[in-house]
C-alpha cells in the first residue's frame, strides 16, 4: 500500500462517514424526501445506529487485519472511532435538544432512573477520553497506558448494544444481532490473546531447556 493510496482510501472513508449525516440534513430541509411522520425519532435512530455501526467497524479492524494480513487497515481505525464518537454525540444532542427540549429535570431523571439511558450515557462519557487521546502525540505520551485506556472501547460497545436491547419494545432480534457480532469480535480477541500467551510460554520453555 503506497502512501498516496492510503491517503485516498482514508479520504473515501471520511466521505462515507459523512453520508448518514448528509442524508439526515438533506431530508430535514426537504431534499430527496422527508424524515417521515416522526422526524425526531428518525434522526435519533439514524445517528444512534450509525454510531453503533461505526463502533463495531472500529472493533472489527484488528481481527480483519490479523486474518487477512492487510496491516494498513489499522490506519483507518482512528477515523472510524472518531466518526463513531461524533455520531453518538449527535445522537445524545438530538435526544437532549430536539426530543426533550433541554428539559433538565426530565433529562436528569432519565439519566439517573431509566437504565437504558443510564448505560447509553455512560457509553458516551467513556468515549470522551478516547476521543481526546486519539492524537499521535497523546499516543506517544501515554505509551502503554494508551493501549490500556483504549481497551475501554470493548466496554463501550457492550454498553451501546445493551442500550439498544433495553429500549426496544419487544422485538429484540436487531439488538441481539448486534450483540452476536460484538460477541464474535470480543471472542476473537480472547482466543487470539490465549494463543499468544501459549506461544510466549512455549518460547520461554524452549529458552530454558537446553536443546
Amino acid at each position, binding site marked *: 500500500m503506497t502512501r498516496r493510496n492510503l491517503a485516498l482510501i482514508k479520504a473515501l472513508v471520511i466521505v462515507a462517514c459523512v453520508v448518514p449525516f448528509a442524508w439526515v440534513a438533506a431530508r430535514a430541509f426537504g431534499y430527496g424526501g422527508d424524515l417521515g411522520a416522526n422526524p425526531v425519532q428518525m434522526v435519533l435512530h439514524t445517528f444512534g445506529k450509525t454510531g453503533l455501526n461505526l463502533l463495531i467497524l472500529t472493533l472489527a479492524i484488528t481481527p480483519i487485519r490479523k486474518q487477512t494480513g492487510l496491516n494498513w487497515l489499522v490506519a483507518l481505525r482512528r477515523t472510524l472511532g472518531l466518526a463513531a464518537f461524533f455520531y453518538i454525540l449527535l445522537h445524545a444532542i438530538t435526544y437532549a435538544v430536539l426530543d*426533550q427540549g433541554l428539559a433538565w429535570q426530565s433529562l436528569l431523571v432519565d439519566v439517573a432512573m431509566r437504565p437504558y439511558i443510564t448505560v447509553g450515557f455512560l457509553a458516551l462519557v467513556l468515549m470522551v477520553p478516547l476521543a481526546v487521546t486519539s492524537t499521535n502525540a497523546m499516543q506517544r505520551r501515554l505509551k502503554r497506558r494508551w493501549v490500556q485506556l483504549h481497551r475501554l472501547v470493548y466496554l463501550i460497545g457492550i454498553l451501546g448494544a445493551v442500550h439498544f436491547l433495553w429500549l426496544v419494545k419487544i422485538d429484540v432480534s436487531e439488538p441481539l444481532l448486534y450483540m452476536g457480532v460484538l460477541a464474535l469480535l470480543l471472542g476473537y480477541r480472547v482466543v487470539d490473546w490465549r494463543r499468544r500467551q501459549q506461544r510466549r510460554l512455549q518460547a520461554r520453555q524452549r529458552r530454558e531447556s537446553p536443546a
Partner: protein
Amino acid sequence: MLIKRPPDIKPSEITPESAFHRRRDILKAALAAGLLPAANAWGQAIGGGFPELVPLAREATRHRAFPEVGNLGDLNTWPHDVERETTSFEDITNYNNYYEFGTGKTDPAKNAHTLRTHPWSVTVEGEADITGTFALEDLMKGHTLEDRLYRFRCVEAWSMVVPWVGFPLGDLLKRFEPTSRANYVQFFTLNDAEQMPGVRYPVLRWPYREGLTIAEAMHPLALLTVGLYGQVLPNQNGAPLRLIVPWKYGFKSIKSIVRIRFMEREPETSWNMANAREYGFYSNVNPDKDHPRWSQATERVLGAGLFSSRIPTRLFNGYADQVASLYTGLDLMRNY
C-alpha cells in the same frame, strides 16, 4: 340526518375545517384516480332499526358488497374537542404498529397489501344468546356510520389525531344479547401466515388478542371502526374492522377483528401476556403512571416536524370527563 351529540360537548367544539377540507381533497383525488365507485357504496341506504342477525351457517347469502376501497359516503359527525390539528392521511397510514406485517413503523404500509379484507366474517361466541359467524356486511347493517375525530396515544409516547369512521361498539354488542355473566369482551385479530408475513415470528403470541370490561365496551366513545378520512380503512390501519378506544393506549385498539368473545373472567391480552409488568389489562392513558422503561408524562405529536416540542399527556387521553366514572374506586396506579 341524525346528529348525536353527548351532553357535555360544547357546540363550538367542531371538527376542524382543515380536516374536513383535507378529506374532501383526498376524496376528489381518489375519484379522479378512479379509486372510488361513482355511487356511494353503503353509507346512505343504512338507517332505521337493525335486521335480524343471521349467522352465515344458516343463510350464506351476502347482501351488499363491502367496498374494498373507496368513499364511505355522507357521514353523521360526532363533533369532538381535540384541540389539536388533525394528523395527515399520509402520516396516519405510514407510521403504524401492526406486527403481523412487520415490527418497523413503515412495514405495515409496505406489506399489508397481502391482507384480503373481502369477504370478511366475524365469529361471535361465549356468554351471549346470539352467537355464530356473521358476514361483515350483515353486522354493519342498520348501524349509522359516524365521523369521529379522536386523539390517539400510543404507549410508545407518540400521538396523532385521526378522523375515524365507525359506529359505537356497544350498539353492535347489545344485538348479541350478552348474558348476565358477560363481564368482559375479548377480541382477536386474524392470524394467517399466508396473508401476514409477521406471524411467522413469535414476537407476540398470535393471534393478537385484546379485551375490555363490558362497561368499557358499552361506553359510547368505544368505536368499531371501518374507515378514516371518509374512506375505507387502509389495510395497514386494521381493515376491514377494528376497534378504537381513544382513552387507552393504542395497542388496546385491536385491528382486523375476526372473533369477539363474551367472557365471565378477565380475558388474556397479547401485550399483557408478553410483559405484564409493562402492559396492564386496563392500559388507560395516564401521564402519572410511567412505563417501567420510559416516561408517559409527555408525548411526541406525529407530523409536527423536527423542531416541535413534546406536549403534556392528559389523563384518559383527555377523555376523563367522559370515561373517568368507569373507574371510580379503582386505584389507577395499581390497575394500570
